[in-house]
């Protein structure tokens, strides 16, 4: 890459952006900010406070202690669950990206009149209730389900394949439901890439594959970024799917939080768990954005 060509000859000119006045911007932000403050920030602060308090005999006492956090990080079980959660999030995001990109590309470029139908197909996982969707997957993936049943019946295998109650089953169901978010994020961005750019790169000697790598892919980065952030944060906070398709053999942090608060009644520890998940995913997302921003320089 001739990155350095001509560098230092003249610094890039300063860009001046003209936008609405400050008070207009504030006024426009106000309603949403108010809702966010009331129903999001206040509970969040409450949860932070609870996570720092103490529990004794099913009642919690206000205190300021990091005991719950220490307990989490000194127990390999919880750290392991945290790791599994993030790893699952990563796998689901990667799979959704790989499966979703070709789909999004087609959706963005196609000129068929069946486009609305395609869109409904892509959104269909979101149109089915979460429990029904999970039972649907169970029918397919269970040891005596459709897939294993057919394979055993046909004599191809003697023991059922482990399709469910493991990370695979959970991941599969999660990819299924989060794929629309990825596809929609990507489609919007890909649609805005001028097809003339591809043609320009081809007249300059780029093969179609090279043109994709040099032009389409870098220009779809904003969509990739938005889609993966959405899918990742949805995946690591998912709860029903890991329970139903993981059968308590796949532990993720949201399940632990649920158990601590609703079964064990240890609110402070549950709150600490939730907070740890929140902070760590925020950290990962921030890091991701930082890296992406560097790659996106000049795009936006």
């Amino acid at each position, binding site marked *: 890459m001739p*990155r*350095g060509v001509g560098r230092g000859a003249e610094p890039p000119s300063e*860009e001046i952006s003209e936008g609405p006045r400050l008070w207009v911007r504030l006024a426009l932000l106000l309603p949403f900010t108010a809702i966010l403050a009331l129903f999001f920030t206040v509970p969040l602060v409450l949860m932070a406070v609870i996570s720092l308090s103490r529990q004794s005999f099913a009642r919690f006492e206000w205190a300021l202690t990091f005991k719950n956090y220490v307990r989490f990080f000194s127990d390999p079980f919880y750290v392991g669950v945290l790791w599994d959660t993030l790893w699952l999030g990563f796998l689901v995001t990667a799979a959704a990206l790989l499966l979703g990109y070709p789909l999004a590309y087609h959706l963005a470029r196609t000129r068929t009149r069946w486009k609305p139908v395609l869109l409904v197909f892509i959104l269909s996982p979101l149109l089915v209730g979460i429990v029904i969707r999970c039972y649907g997957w169970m029918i397919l993936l269970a040891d005596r389900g459709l897939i294993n049943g057919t394979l055993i019946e046909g004599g191809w295998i003697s023991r059922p394949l482990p399709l469910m109650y493991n990370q695979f089953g959970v991941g599969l169901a999660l990819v299924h439901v989060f794929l629309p978010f990825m596809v929609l994020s990507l489609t919007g961005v890909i649609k805005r890439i001028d097809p003339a750019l591809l043609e320009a790169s081809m*007249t*300059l*000697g780029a093969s179609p594959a090279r043109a994709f790598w040099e032009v389409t892919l870098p220009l779809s980065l904003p969509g990739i970024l938005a889609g993966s952030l959405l899918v990742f944060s949805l995946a690591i906070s998912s709860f029903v799917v890991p329970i139903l398709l993981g059968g308590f053999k796949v532990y993720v942090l949201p399940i632990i939080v649920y158990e601590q608060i609703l079964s064990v009644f240890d609110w402070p520890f549950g709150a600490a768990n939730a907070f740890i998940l929140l902070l760590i995913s925020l950290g990962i997302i921030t890091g991701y954005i930082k890296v992406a921003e560097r790659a*996106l320089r000049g795009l936006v």
Partner: protein
Amino acid sequence: MTLATGNDVELRGVTKRYGPILALDTFSLQVGAGEFFTLLGPSGCGKTTALRSIAGFITLNAGEVFLKGTRVTDLPPHRRRVGMVFQHYALFPHRTVAQNVAFGLRMQKVPKGEIADRVEKTLALVQLPRYAGRFPRQLSGGEQQRVALARALVTRPTVLLLDEPLGALDKKLRERMQVELKRLQREVGITTIYVTHDQEEALTMSDRIAVMQSGRIEQVGTPLEIYECPQSAFVADFIGNINLLRGTVIGHAEHQAAVDCRGAKLRIGALPGAVAPEAVMALRPEKVRLNPSEPLDNDLAATVVHLVYLGDSVLYHLRSDEGIELQALELAQAGGVRHQAGTRVRVGWRSEDASLLPLTSSPLPRGERLGEGG
């Protein structure tokens, strides 16, 4: 396969169909080395399609494309070595000016040091030497245009294809870029095919012009030939402003014909071959004289119906007593407009300034005017 033709670009019988539309209809074209060749025609006549079939973006229904004598009909765009400048520049937004220009060289695997060198030279050539580090969105339209040009030129392509490259610029900048583009083209000596629907642009820049209509070439020639000797009413009307009067030929000798137009007998000089009984007389408005001092071959009494003050000249809309409608262009006098609307004038022109064209069945770009004379 090699076929020496001596032309940098040749299209033979190229046909492209879009459903019922014939975008190119057995279209043939030859462009010589170093030539500035313009495709000119109304919207939808197939100019872009012709250009894109040279670049390789179009699967042809029939015909062959040759670049430097080599048949490239089945070659994909990235192996044709053409340079193309798009109407909206199509600069890579995520790359700096230098990276945009370097792109083609990188695809050709040119060594890094040489890339930097050639990029710098080409940016100097288009007079943007200190813009290397900027991104396209930080440039004005004219500057983006130059970058697009530099990017297309730096790889030294066989032919430079330009599809209305100045279409998005304002008039002043457009005129400046026309001069600039022409200078560059001469300096580099690159074979260029230029698409425009602006006849003035075509006339000022081209070595040769092909006037197109409905996927076919109506006439090919130098700007002078196209302007002075249009071979059809369509070309005559498309290039510049012209009076087209339909009439009946009532007699003709070798260099002279007489046409009856609404009862007036008009004399015509230039005859392009066979003369049909029904024909069109073509006469440029600037050749029409008002109240000439000496009597001319043609002489009509007329009324000024309407006039358009153009600053440096005045365009008179006239109606003769026979009902013939004519336009006359006069340079503005020091005193301003010579004849006011409603004044009676004598209208005259020399017979050799008018030419007789065959009556074409093809629609005229500004069709109704043809009927006015008869």
